């Protein structure tokens, strides 16, 4: 009977009920869509980072704290041995999709043809392994990994540079990169400094001096110079296969992705060292378990290495997600406030209109709690209608947006992701939002309802 009365009163005051349900519905819709967007960031950004870096990374102990100042002192002494230890574990074998070493390095890069040179930040990777990592889609969100641009032949001498790097080296035209123009008179200013000129000459053009000849493939030639772990300057000649944009501008302006063996030859002089071992896991939700297991295995093998989640190494994801979570929290709080005020207002009006009915019900021997339930039921129903509206609109609108294929480049990415508002794909979230709507609809009604229940019976009955 309570629900019958509640429902019929809502129908009776149709316009007011619809307005209130709309306020709840639109508020819920905004929360669902924004939440759907944040969800897609959660999965999308993590996916592209895992495609690039793996879920876990193994470093020599101390690297994350002190490695930046003295990278040579914190390399993994024998990456193959470490990988063998992990691969030997049968349970892990099924969980791990890719396990591959990487060498991080830096130095000076120069192009002989243009005479330009500049510092570079490089990563030496096993091209085939990275290509496989780029295919990872552990959450099945359909995010296609980008090709690395590196040939998979381990002996290849081809490298990939950042777009900014290509521009600065003046190789855009040679690579036929769209939206990339070579700087006019690149490097002209630098000639004034004689010591710089000497250095530039060494890296950029004086191939004879370094004893290296450029290949005749038509690809721009690049000389990379770096210090080996012993501190001896070393130089290799490679060819630029492609230029690919990097997310961070500073990195894009200096980035070189090179074959693992080339990097190894340049800085480790053939020794079995590596900066890190990237571990990509089939099921991202198993990352913590795999990390613990790897840690145990490395410890048992007496290796001075530790495994880290990629978010521990690079806080970018945590920060991006934190920012969106914060925005979501603020927007939700504002929406909740609007909903609370709307409902408070509606229930207060309803109570005032029905004071005499309240007095009558109380006179008939119903306790205060019954009167309370009568009005709370009405509010709960309004909340339910609002939530249903939010769900219907949310599903409809997210489908529309998703099929429109809007592109968005997250702060961490070089290339845009297709915006996919994940509303139903995150059922826990969607259900929480809908439940929250009903709960605040009820909570917002508590105060006016409480007042209604406590009305003086005689005075309510005297009301006209």
């Amino acid at each position, binding site marked *: *009977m309570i629900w*019958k*009365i509640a429902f*019929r*009163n809502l129908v*009776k005051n149709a316009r007011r009920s619809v307005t209130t349900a709309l306020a709840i519905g639109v508020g819920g819709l905004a929360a669902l869509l924004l939440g759907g967007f944040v969800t897609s960031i959660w999965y999308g950004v993590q996916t592209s980072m895992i495609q690039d870096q793996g879920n876990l990374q193994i470093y020599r102990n101390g690297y994350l704290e002190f490695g930046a100042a003295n990278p040579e002192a914190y390399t993994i002494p024998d990456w193959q041995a470490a990988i063998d230890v992990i691969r030997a574990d049968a349970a892990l074998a099924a969980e791990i999709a890719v396990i591959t070493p990487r060498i991080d390095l830096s130095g000076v890069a120069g192009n002989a043809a243009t005479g330009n040179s500049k510092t570079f930040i490089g990563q030496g990777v096993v091209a085939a392994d990275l290509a496989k990592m780029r295919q990872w889609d552990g959450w099945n969100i359909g995010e296609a990994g980008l090709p690395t641009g590196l040939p998979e032949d381990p002996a290849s001498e081809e490298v990939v540079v950042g777009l900014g790097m290509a521009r600065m080296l003046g190789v855009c035209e040679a690579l036929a990169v769209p939206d990339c123009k070579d700087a006019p008179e690149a490097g002209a200013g630098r000639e004034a400094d004689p010591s710089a000129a000497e250095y530039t000459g060494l890296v950029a053009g004086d191939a004879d001096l370094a004893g290296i000849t450029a290949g005749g493939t038509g690809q721009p030639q690049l000389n990379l110079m770096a210090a080996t772990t012993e501190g001896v300057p070393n130089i290799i000649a490679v060819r630029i296969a492609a230029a690919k944009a990097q997310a961070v501008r500073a990195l894009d302006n200096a980035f070189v992705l090179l074959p693992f063996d080339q990097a190894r030859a340049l800085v480790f002089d053939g020794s079995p060292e590596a900066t890190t071992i990237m571990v990509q896991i089939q099921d991202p939700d198993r990352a913590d378990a795999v990390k613990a297991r790897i840690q145990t295995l490395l410890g048992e093998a007496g290796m001075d290495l530790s495994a880290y989640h990629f978010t521990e190494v690079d806080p970018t994801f945590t920060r991006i997600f934190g920012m969106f979570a914060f925005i979501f929290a603020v927007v939700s709080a504002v929406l909740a406030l609007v909903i609370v005020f709307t409902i408070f207002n509606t229930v207060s009006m309803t109570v005032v209109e029905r004071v*005499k*009915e309240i*007095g*009558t*019900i*109380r*006179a*008939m*021997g*119903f*306790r*205060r709690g019954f009167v309370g339930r009568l009005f709370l039921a009405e509010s709960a129903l309004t909340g339910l209608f609002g939530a249903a509206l939010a769900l219907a609109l949310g599903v409809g609108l997210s489908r529309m947006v998703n099929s429109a294929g809007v592109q968005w480049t997250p702060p961490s990415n070089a290339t845009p992701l297709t915006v996919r508002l994940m509303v139903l794909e995150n059922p826990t979230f969607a259900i929480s939002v809908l439940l929250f709507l009903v709960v605040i609809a009820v909570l917002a009604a508590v105060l006016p309802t409480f007042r209604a229940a406590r009305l003086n*019976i*005689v005075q309510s*009955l005297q009301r006209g």
Partner: protein
Amino acid sequence: MNQHIEAAQLDGQTITAGSAAPCAARFEAVTKDYRLDKVKVRALTEVSCTILAGTTTFITGPSGSGKSTFLNILGLVDRPDAGRLELFGADVTGLGDAAAADFRARNIGFIFQSFNLIPVLSLRENVEFPLLRQPMSGRARRDRAAAYLEAVGLGGLMDRRPGEISGGQRQRVAVARALAPEPRLIVADEPTANLDTRTSREIVALLARMQAEFNTTVVICTHETQLIPPHSPVIEIIDGRVV
């Protein structure tokens, strides 16, 4: 329906057992003040009287004399500031809000001047409504409501809403609603004030008939003395005092 009434009477005897003259209500020096902006208005002054069970008692008096206040205290929706009230042999003076509500649900029915039906409920649902406080199945509630609507002559309009019937018919529904839980006491404050003379007589006659049929105690407040049947017990209140 007779079974229900027997049950009610049995129930009544459990409380009134032992008292020679069955007394529905006993007022002992009941005083009631209203506070209006810190000014005290005395509505009832040391009212003492008894209402016999199984009668239709009329309360009369000029406007503002305290009739409604008297009925509100009798019906347990208001409390005296001083004095004592006994209903069916039980001291109900100090009952708390919930206990008073429970007592009303079991023992007291109300009929109001402006009918006070719930507009969104059908006539049958209106009569069913107070039965929600009784331990009955939904089916029993519906049957009981239908039976009482039949008894007041509205069996054919059960599915209408209060807005779709006349004032006299509404008050009949209110009578059925007050009777349906089979209370021992029915309190009616000016039940005919909003009705024309003919309808008023019909309602009073209906109440008298129902009182006789179900042997309840009915207390009606009215200033239309011509409606009072001869030989009825009358309590006259003037200026907050029983005369």
